[in-house]
């Protein structure tokens, strides 16, 4: 035992015997390591975030300043710089490209406003309706969530079959059975396509509003309602005075998320209308896709995307600023 112990002891002695420099450095190094470790552990996540989110965004912004057409596809990094040319073309509202972008933007704004409003009204109404417990509530809740749970492609393709003029279910009901239209209307081309798109978007979007509001409702204490009922408040007044104000923080996020998702929605119009959406349903995301992938002008498409990003950033910041101020004022 002694033979094995002695060299260790000797070593230890030798270490402590070394001149002063080593001794104070050790705690500093240790402190550095202590502080550094969390950052080191965060590093992979940070790099992954950079890789997945920021690098593509930065590339997109860089591409928007390039003349990236079909001629430079293979060596796109070395495509010529176009300065602000792509932005000039996109924002020249007297020329067809700018006009088309503007009209698509207007369509998207109208579509988003209607879709978000309808999703919200339906979601909140259904959630309030299902707040009281009754027989079959669980089944209804599950049923309402089905559109949200279905894969988007499968659901929207089914809608596109239903909207077909000659063989679709919608016209079969509206025209053949109810006799509401003289001739079967078109839903996938022409003006009605806006309505078709709105119907599918609301069908797909309202269960999310329902889900979030249902969760929000769980946090409102029951005694508030009981007290209000004792004071003689009816159901409408309870909703107006208790439910809606209590849901305010939930609604703030819900409306923002619905707005962003609807404004950016690509899958629904793409699956419903294919590459060339009718003008009345030409949402901006599909329009940008057409302007880049269909015409092979990725610089212009990226410029439009950056403009869309700026718009959405501006709206989101304004919305958050406005609603938080309102909330603070309300709280005070």
């Amino acid at each position, binding site marked *: 035992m002694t033979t094995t112990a002695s060299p260790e002891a000797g070593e230890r002695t030798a270490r402590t015997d070394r001149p002063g420099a080593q001794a104070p450095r050790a705690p500093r190094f240790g402190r550095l390591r202590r502080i550094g470790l969390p950052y080191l552990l965060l590093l*992979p996540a940070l790099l992954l975030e950079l890789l997945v989110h920021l690098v593509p965004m930065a590339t997109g912004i860089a591409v928007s300043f390039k003349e990236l057409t*079909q001629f430079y*596809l*293979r060596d796109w990094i070395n495509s010529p710089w176009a300065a602000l040319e792509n932005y000039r073309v996109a924002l020249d509202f007297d020329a*067809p*490209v700018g006009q088309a972008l503007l009209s698509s933007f207007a369509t998207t704004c109208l579509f988003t406003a209607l879709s978000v409003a309808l999703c919200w009204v339906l979601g909140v109404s259904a959630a309030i309706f299902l707040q009281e417990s009754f027989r079959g509530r669980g089944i209804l809740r599950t049923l309402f969530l089905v559109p949200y749970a279905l894969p988007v492609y499968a659901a929207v393709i089914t809608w596109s079959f239903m909207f077909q003029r000659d063989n679709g279910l919608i016209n079969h009901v509206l025209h053949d059975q109810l006799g509401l239209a003289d001739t079967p209307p078109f839903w996938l081309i*022409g003006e009605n396509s806006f309505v078709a798109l709105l119907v599918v978007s609301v069908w797909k979007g309202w269960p999310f509003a329902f889900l979030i509001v249902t969760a929000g409702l769980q946090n409102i204490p029951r005694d508030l309602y009981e007290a209000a009922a004792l004071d003689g408040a009816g159901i409408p007044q309870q909703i107006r005075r208790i439910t809606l104000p209590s849901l305010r923080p939930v609604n703030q996020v819900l409306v923002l998320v619905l707005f962003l998702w609807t404004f950016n929605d690509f899958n629904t119009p793409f699956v419903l209308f294919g590459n060339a959406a009718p003008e009345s349903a030409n949402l901006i995301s599909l329009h940008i896709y057409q302007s880049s992938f269909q015409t092979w002008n990725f610089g212009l498409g990226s410029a439009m995307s950056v403009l869309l990003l700026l718009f959405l950033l501006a709206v989101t910041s304004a919305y958050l600023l406005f609603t938080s101020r309102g909330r603070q004022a309300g709280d005070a």
Partner: protein
Amino acid sequence: MRRNKAASVGALVLSLALTSAACGGGTSGGSNEQPKTLTYWASNQGASIEVDKKVLQPELDKFEKETGIKVKLEVVPWSDLLNRIMTASTTGRGPDVLNIGNTWSASLQAGGALMPWDDAAFQKIGGKDKFVESALGSTGAEGKPPAAVPLYSMAYALYYNKKLFKEAGISKPPATWDELVSTGKKLTKDGKAGLGVEGSNLSNNIHQVFVLGKQHGVDFFTPDGKADFTSDGAVAAVKQYVDLMATHKIVPRGNAEYEQNQSLSDFATDKTAMVLWQTAAATFAAKGMSEDEWGVAPAPVQSGAPGQGKGTNSMVAGINLAVFKNTKNSEGAMKFVEFMSSDGEQKILNKAYGSIPPVKTAQQDPAFNGPGIATLRETLTTSAAALPQVPEESQFETVVGTAVKELFAEAAAGRPVTDQLVRAKLDKAQQQMPKK
């Protein structure tokens, strides 16, 4: 402490791995790094992707037996093919050999992702002369080495439903547009339609108005490659096509939203008497029609006699085979193209797809001389013209195809389709083309 150390090392390794993944890129230029494998993107030629796999796999096995090179097959649907090729071009990671629609040749050639077929390259697969001249006309811009070689050739023709013709007491198919309209009117009754179109299918719209443009003596591009969509002839061509629904009413209004070959289903279920289509035999068979239930005649021309110039009654339709410039097996890729364009394979594949071999010697096979296919072969050799071989062809398909789609939507809504409206739509299309 030891656990902390392990965590730090793990974090560092992961970070390094991520950084290196982010910095990785494609190689440039072809090589022979992987001589034993090839990846092949085939276009969807049969009734379904499964059918294609069944047709192609035995041939690929044969190739593997001959050369020892394993070919990994992927059949890419038409809706994805162009996007996939573009993505492969930008990343440099793609297949070794791929099918392209022959009308895309010049557009993809401009992108520089496909290996150019100069004389030396052609020599390796048996020389340029083995291909039919008209098919070579759709392989890229004039004066440049082709971007691909022809694989399957197709042509448009008028297909008619014999049962409906018999019921209406019509003995022979129409040869001129006037005859087509009068025949169509006789056939349009009792919920049946004279003619079917695919109003929302952009490519099909382009093929039809391109041919009608030729018949009116115009091209949609000037000789130096500038877009020229608003000439009187172009307006007349587009209007003539849309008028089949708008004025003559021999096309049902519902056809305006067709884009997934619904008109062929209507034809096969005796709802539509005629369609103008390219190489439809295999599709009809897949939809349960036997060969004696339909007939085929040359597509109509104004004069009734197809030929060159104003007698053009079809585009040179077809599929080309290209080699990706970044291939890691360029020798193998050449061998594969040689194999696919050999007489034996040309006969087997074109028979399976109902198309015509673009290889001269294979075309002599009696199988391509039957009554149905002979019309297509005749059209291809005497009265078909290649779509403009300009880099902007793909954009042309999109913008003019969309204009025609919108005009069909107008006609379907019962609104008049006037010369002014057609011109306005074409003008808008032209302004969306890239400025030169």
